[in-house]
């Protein structure tokens, strides 16, 4: 499988703090989960790849330019309806009028919120808002979807729903690159695991192999800790 993304010697240093250190990776799997404890640099790595942060060293190389979208831990909703929140992303992407409405409706259908299209987005529950954010991403038809701990503040039912939608993205051919510190979630969603701690990649392995026996001692300790 050829890689869709190549990171080489990626660094992010802020003052004295190295947040991401010398990350060299090739990504090819359909669903890659970046796993690690809080403060490991998972979210920062995601932002560097998506281009929200500029690395202080190293390169992010896309062999072919891919359409990207990102879903954040806390969904950002504009003070307008659910439907128009989805439309907004499409407008910025330069999608034509008419086509926008069609895609937005289909995306809301996909996340199970078609009936809430006319509701103001910011008064929805956290779980519903996150699904609107996923619909906004879905409508953009991304080839890569970044998700930064998308279920960190959701209840179990919303969590299941969000994981289902992520599965649909993957089934539709979108590459998933997602951070989590939730081991169960990583088990459920990942084809491949990247374990990072203290800004460094400690292990990259197929999910099945990783969960059976991580090669890295700290990754193994992380898994034991979670299971206790």
């Amino acid at each position, binding site marked *: 499988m050829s890689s869709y993304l190549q990171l080489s010697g990626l660094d992010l240093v802020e003052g004295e703090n190295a947040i991401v250190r010398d990350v060299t990776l090739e990504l090819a799997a359909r669903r890659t989960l970046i796993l690690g404890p809080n403060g490991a640099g998972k979210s920062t790595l995601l*932002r560097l790849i*998506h281009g*929200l942060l500029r690395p202080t060293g190293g390169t992010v190389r896309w062999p072919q330019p891919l359409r*990207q*979208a*990102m879903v*954040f831990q806390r969904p*950002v*909703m*504009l*003070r*307008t309806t659910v439907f128009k929140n989805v439309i*907004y*992303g499409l407008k*910025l*992407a330069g999608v034509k009028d008419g086509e926008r409405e069609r895609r937005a409706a289909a995306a809301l259908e996909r996340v199970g919120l078609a009936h809430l299209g006319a509701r*103001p*987005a*910011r*008064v929805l529950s956290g779980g519903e808002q996150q699904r609107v954010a996923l619909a*906004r991403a879905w409508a953009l038809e991304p080839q890569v979807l970044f998700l930064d701990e998308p279920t960190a503040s959701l209840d179990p039912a919303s969590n299941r729903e969000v994981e289902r939608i992520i599965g649909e993205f993957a089934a539709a051919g979108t590459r998933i690159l997602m951070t989590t510190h939730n081991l169960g979630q990583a088990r459920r969603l990942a084809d491949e695991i990247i374990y990072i701690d203290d800004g460094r990649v400690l292990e990259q392995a197929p999910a099945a192999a990783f969960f059976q026996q991580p090669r890295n001692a700290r990754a193994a300790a992380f898994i034991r800790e979670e299971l206790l």
Partner: protein
Amino acid sequence: MNEISASLQLAASLIAAADAKLYGIVALSLRVSLSATVIACVVGMPIGAWLAVGRFAGRRVLIVLFNGMMGLPPVAVGLLIYLLLSRAGPLGTFGLLFTPTAMIIAQSVLVAPIVAALTRQVIADAWLEYREQLRSLGASRPRAAATLLWDGRFSLSTAALAGFGRAIAEVGTVMIVGGNIDGVTRVMTTTIALETSKGDLPLALALGVILISLVLAINAVAYLLRGWAARRWG
């Protein structure tokens, strides 16, 4: 004490009788200050948003400058506009001095920095929350600024209101550039100042009551609007 209560009674009867002169003054005040506020918002809000979102040399200096200009002394602004509009001044040929237009210009200059500075604060807070999402969606900075202005429309009503409150209540600029000409450029505040010094308290009191009521009513409406907006839109 008697004099005051007698004046208050006269003032009440002036208001109740819809005295033409009284309401002419109120109408001119509203026209001048509302126009100035609209102009100040049209100019000041984009400036404020750009100060919050933009990246350019001298941004910090401009922020400090606009914050400082929130406290511009009205008489100084009045004097400046007077010099610009006077016959010998650079804009003298338009013959605007001592007209309501001159008063609108002067109040716009007074109020625009207030609107800009308050807008910058509102938009800067929103930018912290929205920044990554908007950039992820590919919004340019001007586009982001426009989005945040629209998104902050209810919060920004406070900025507009602060500007209007300043305009309707100030006396210095309109006195200097308007000249307080009876029936032409006489507004509530200048009338109150004049009539009080002449000893004609009823008219001054009537206008004072109306002025205070207006400011309170507009604040109440804005408060209700924001409460409604928060419940409706979050």
